[in-house]
């Protein structure tokens, strides 16, 4: 699953940065444990030595983790800063979560159950829930935000490649929670525009139809 935005790339970097350090430390800890257990095994009849502690060592292994974790924090925080500041020129789509489906509404009132967006253009998603908590999650873009009644949440992204990706609900919301999937379709800008115009026209005709029947 390749990352599909600069934000997703920064998430992947922070992830592998922490995994790398953690893995190295885990190897050291595990190796030392196993090594000591073998080297100082009671079967070798060697007398144990009482060592009550070592202050410089304690300071070192407190300070080094502090520095490492501060670095980890830094990358996570910088990435998040990016996510919480959508560009001014973002296209806004309102996403409504309800048990158990998503509906996307564009600023001209056009509704869709699949999220069509143009590639390389910032898209801001306003998140609205009409019943319980949901969470809007696009794994390919590494973004997620809870959808909570009475709360105005949003997220934004700028996809770098076209394609069709899953949108999942990540906050437990009852019986059909695991079926609350939909798709985000990222298309080239001209394709998106023609879809948007078509769909809008279709919507307007249906609207006039219903009014004429009345």
């Amino acid at each position, binding site marked *: 699953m390749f990352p599909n935005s600069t934000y997703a790339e920064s998430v992947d970097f922070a992830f592998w940065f922490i995994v790398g350090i953690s893995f190295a430390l885990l190897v050291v800890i595990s190796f030392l444990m196993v090594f000591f257990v073998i080297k100082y095994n009671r079967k070798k009849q060697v007398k144990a030595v009482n060592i009550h502690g070592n202050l410089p060592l304690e300071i070192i292994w407190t300070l080094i983790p502090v520095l490492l974790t501060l670095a980890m924090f830094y990358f996570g925080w910088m990435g998040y800063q990016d996510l919480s500041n959508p560009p001014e020129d973002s296209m806004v789509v309102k996403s409504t979560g309800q048990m158990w489906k998503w509906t996307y509404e564009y600023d001209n009132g056009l509704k869709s159950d699949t999220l069509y967006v143009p590639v390389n253009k910032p898209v801001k998603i306003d998140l609205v829930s009409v019943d319980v908590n949901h969470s809007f999650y696009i794994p390919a873009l590494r973004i997620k935000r809870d959808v909570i009644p009475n709360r105005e949440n949003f997220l934004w992204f700028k996809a770098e490649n076209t394609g069709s990706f899953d949108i*999942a609900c990540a906050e437990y919301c009852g019986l059909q929670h695991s079926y609350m999937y939909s798709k985000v379709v990222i298309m080239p800008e001209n394709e998106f525009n023609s879809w948007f115009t078509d769909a809008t026209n279709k919507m307007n005709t249906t609207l006039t139809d219903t009014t004429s029947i009345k």
Partner: protein
Amino acid sequence: MTSHSSSNNGYESYLDYRGKGTGLKSWIFSTDHKRIGILYLIAMLIFFVVGVTFGFLMRLELIAPGKTIMDPQTYNSFFTLHGIIMIFLFIIPGLPAVFGNFFLPIMLGAKDVSFPRLNLLSWWLFIIGGLLAIIAVFLPGGPVDTGWTFYIPYSVRTSTNVFPALLAAFVLGFSSILTGLNFVTTIHRLRAPGMDWFKMPLFVWSIYSTAWIQVLATPIIGITLLLVIFERAFGFGIFDPALGGDPVLFQHLFWIYSHPAVYIMIIPAMGVISEIIPVFAHRTIFGYKFIAFSSIAIALFGSMVWAHHMFTVGMSGAAMFIFSLLTFLVAIPSAVKVFNWVATLYKGSISTDPPLLYALAFIFLFSIGGFTGLIQGSLSVNMHIHDTSFIVAHFHYVMFGGTGFGIFAALHYWFPKMFARKYNMKSAKVGFWILFVGFNVLYFPMFVMGWLGMPRRYYDYLPEYQIYHFISTVGSWILITGLIIMFANFIHALLKGEKTNEMNPWGGETLEWHVPTPPPLENFDEIPIIETDPYQYKDNDLSNTEVKEVN
């Protein structure tokens, strides 16, 4: 267990004591801290088996996409009940209520806890809470399906039996508070003469910081659940968004308790490890004060990081910054503990008996749990992996790999003292290795699929995740085999195991190894006077005086 008639070596053991009534009555109304510990142990293990069964069945359902053995409603109830039972009825009482009760007074050189009758009341509240949780399954309306987190607004909307489940958690909270209150008072008031704070065993330090969290944090969940009960029953507007409430505020209050609760679960396990490692390395613990103070530090900082469970709800930037930063810093005292444990193995005389194996596995698995905790504490990464099976894997590594293995370590370590029986060492080791392998096969794939985007609490999943789910389910079978071997070994030991009155089978130096086996009714004929530190191992020093370093 009641069929004990161990030889009387001129004293009355707590197992033989006949005071108030006989048989069952002499147990369930006993105020003796050791009997109460055993009562907790029995109750807790029964709930553990039930919880494991739910987990096993869920894993079986997930072996393939689509319906395998149950419908989604049943699955949703199963993960809720699995969570409620494992957290409130197994891990939280696991170490403090069982081994804290049994060994804390002995390790302090006391005859009992400060309030023995209150102690018995705690156990009864625990049982009442457990019964309420069972009622929540069988009442019409169907088993509760909110997840153990009871998030608003789903928990005021669903028609299932939320009410008894909330009440159960509320009552269990009180049981936990009373235990904590009892332990804090006991540690302050009943230390034997000469036992100053830095002569206390490290298990006592860990129970002390745990007990404080129990007293201070639990009321918050009590009141929060009570508010939800009122909200459901009488239509008050508190958290319900339809009445203007804020569902996020519920989450805040829930986690103000439930995050420190994680430390209620893990700190005592760390205490057990700090006991076991010096005994089986046969040398003094490395960095006693650092381990002791890190328990307090974890308790303190642990109460400041709750909102890292809520990074995706849309908190303010300031809150995100603070909670993420503190989350990283709370890892430091845990790291310090791990380093000190490993250093304690250095130049020891190590005997690889089952308790040590469990302790080493604890360090390994808890480290993985801790490191993956760092990954989640990172804000941008959290946006991706929050509420995926990555989280499920992480907290099982901490809760099961950490606390669960800590409980098993404690059982193997203290079993001979508690029951005056020997278990089979070989079976214990076989059981351990199968359990260890099964554990990793079961939970590690969840990290991978979580990173790939598999959300948690999913009854069904997309086909691309099937291979990981399949491996994980196979892991659950291996793990359960290990558990069966372990429990069969204990049951066999209880019924047919070799009786032993050996006072100190492992060569421990804390006080519980200096009372007879099984311990007498009031632990000590005469309260001991403490002159030395808990982990002396003076016999090491005779030939090695020149290498000895003093802190």
